[in-house]
């Protein structure tokens, strides 16, 4: 029996992923965010791009937490020349406030569309476009079929979609690569400084296709993430800083 070297293992993984329709996941050289330990939730330890993620906030604060989290994730998807699109019913995102997460607001196109059906139309257009690296959209009710369409769109274009599902809308099951729930946790203050520190989130992956669910604590430390996993046993892994 031949030894299963890491190389062979990797190649097998890629082939398996390709069979499962994850061509993009397996591709080398794609820009993707590095969320440290959270990456382990996904097949191959790679944050899924060319796919659609959904976020399930339960209230305004969780919605904002998701928005903050995404602001920190988007730059990694966009790269220095890329552009992203943010679709909301009412524009409340504050462009100067995105810089602290490394997101340059001038690289964003904001769409303000009060009608849910319009947002879905725009979302699909944006997901289809090869020019847009990432799209974030506030959605109300979506059907499974619609989510399938989104999935197909990004598989072709290579963009990544993020659905911020409204807390008040009925939530049907969708075809997404992962379901997230983000809420704020106490900030982390380095060196015992007074006041409010580095923003922190409780990041819960409720489901991940071909991956595993889990709960982590994630902090944004000025210019990068730091992450620790909260396992069921209660043991907390060491905080690992990600550049």
């Amino acid at each position: 029996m031949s030894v299963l070297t890491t190389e062979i293992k990797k190649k097998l993984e890629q082939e398996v992923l390709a069979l499962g329709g994850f061509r993009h996941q397996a591709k080398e050289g794609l820009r993707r965010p590095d969320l440290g330990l959270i990456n382990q939730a996904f097949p191959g330890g790679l944050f899924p791009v060319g796919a659609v993620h959904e976020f399930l906030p339960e209230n305004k604060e969780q919605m904002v937490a998701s928005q903050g989290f995404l602001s920190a994730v988007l730059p990694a998807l966009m790269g220095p020349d890329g552009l992203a699109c943010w679709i909301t019913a009412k524009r409340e995102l504050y462009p100067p406030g995105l810089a602290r997460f490394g997101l340059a607001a001038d690289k964003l196109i904001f769409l303000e569309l009060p009608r849910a059906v319009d947002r879905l139309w725009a979302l699909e257009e944006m997901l289809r476009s090869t020019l847009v690296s990432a799209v974030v959209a506030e959605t109300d009710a979506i059907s499974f079929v619609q989510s399938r369409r989104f999935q197909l769109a990004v598989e072709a274009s290579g963009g990544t979609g993020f659905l911020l599902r409204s807390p008040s809308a009925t939530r049907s099951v969708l075809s997404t690569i992962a379901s997230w729930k983000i809420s704020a946790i106490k900030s982390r203050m380095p060196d015992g400084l007074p006041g409010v520190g580095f923003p922190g989130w409780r990041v819960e992956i409720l489901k991940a296709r071909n991956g595993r669910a889990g709960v982590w604590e994630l902090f944004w430390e000025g210019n990068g993430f730091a992450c620790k996993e909260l396992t069921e046993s209660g043991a907390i892994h060491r905080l690992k800083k990600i550049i």
Partner: protein
Amino acid sequence: MQKTFVCIWFKYFKTDRLLIRQPDLKDRPLVLIRKEHGKMLISAANEQVLKQGVQHNTSLADARAIIPGLLSFDDLPEKATTWLKALAVYCNRFCPSVSLSGTDTLFLDVTGCTHLWGGDAPYLQAIRQCFAAIGYQLRLSMADTMGAAWALTRYGKDDLIVPPHRQMDAMLLLPPAALQLEAALLARLDKLGLKTICQLLQLPRSALLRRFGQVLLDRIDACSGQRMESWEPVFPPVKYQERLASLEPILTRTGVEMALQNLLEKITAQLKRDGMGIRQAVFTGFKTGHEPVQIEVGTQLAVQDPRRVFRLFEIKLEALSVEPGIDSFLLDIPRTDPVKEKQEKIWQGSAERNCEELAELIDRISNKFGAHRISRFLPDEHHWPERAYQKTNPLFGGEQVQWPSMDRPVVLLSVPEEIQVSVPVPDYPPLLFRHKGQVHEIIQADGPERIEQEWWLQEGLSRDYYIVEDKNGQRYWLFRSGNYASGSKPSWFLHGYFG
């Protein structure tokens, strides 16, 4: 260039107009009256009345004597031009340039247009049908000059189409009044026994000049085409415009799409020759007897590709109502821009191709929802938070942009929401705040960041901002408006949420 004009004489303009609004008066004798020197005079009368011998400018009393059941209505002479202009708008589907004459006549410059309808006769038919459907009776004629066309509507056969250069022939048997001469001159001519234009033309020009003046010669020359007639169009000229007419009204969306494609191909061909591209296009479908339908699109960059523009129209075509059938189409290009050799780069480092693609993407969105729904922002150097950014063009603007790294929230409420706080004076962070019934106990806080008004822009109270974190880790941006000074009770607000 040889021109062709159509003259439309709304013979019973005012009474037709009245009838359209009061159809139940259809078979009654009608007049419109005006007051002049204390007497009521007839300004307009319908066919029935005129046939019974009542003329314009007869007094109402006299008219009543002839037709006892006469119905009279007040005329609004100052409105005449407005009403006529409204009808001129209808003619836009037939030709690019329309001019008014008097209070009941329109001239259409139909040079090069009639072939679209399949010929001069079908063209006139289409015009007649268009107005008949609304309720106007017309007398139409087509000739090389306005003078001739006018003359023929008044004194010639109806629907007369005069072949090119033959207008004087057509006018030979018309009376001198057809030359739009003044009453005094007409009386003189009549006295001299000159009862047809033919007779006038037989006299030498010098004699005509000597005996009747320059005006007569001018009028004759205008009709013959020797003298230029002045043209004052009702609508400003549009450089790029194309029309399409259909013999049968078009009832399907496919038909409309084909018409649009056809027009786009024609116009973009012209634009390409001129090195211009479309920035704004208006597509109108005219229906007989109904309001026209219209779609408008705009683009970020000058576009020459007809398919790209078609795709923008396509978004809205679905909503177009085709019933009960569209007879003719008009494509207008009100706004163009020169097409640059090399497209400007959007932002930094993007490829040329991306610029066009992105422009197309933005065009699709802005045409569907309106350009105001798309925003892109650049930083603006102001300490006052609401002013720290500015709107910019979605495609261009902002090389080397630097957003200052400041502690600012991810979400800013457009209107700060009032809260109640428990706070040690004078300017320490609050211990707790209540917002929409919820109490938040504050565990950590930063601040105050005191921001004064930008005094050259606005007067008012300063704001002390605090970044606060409650026991759930939720982070908010609060401010106090003004200070606790000698008994004042300043208000507190929630302005934003940190991610």
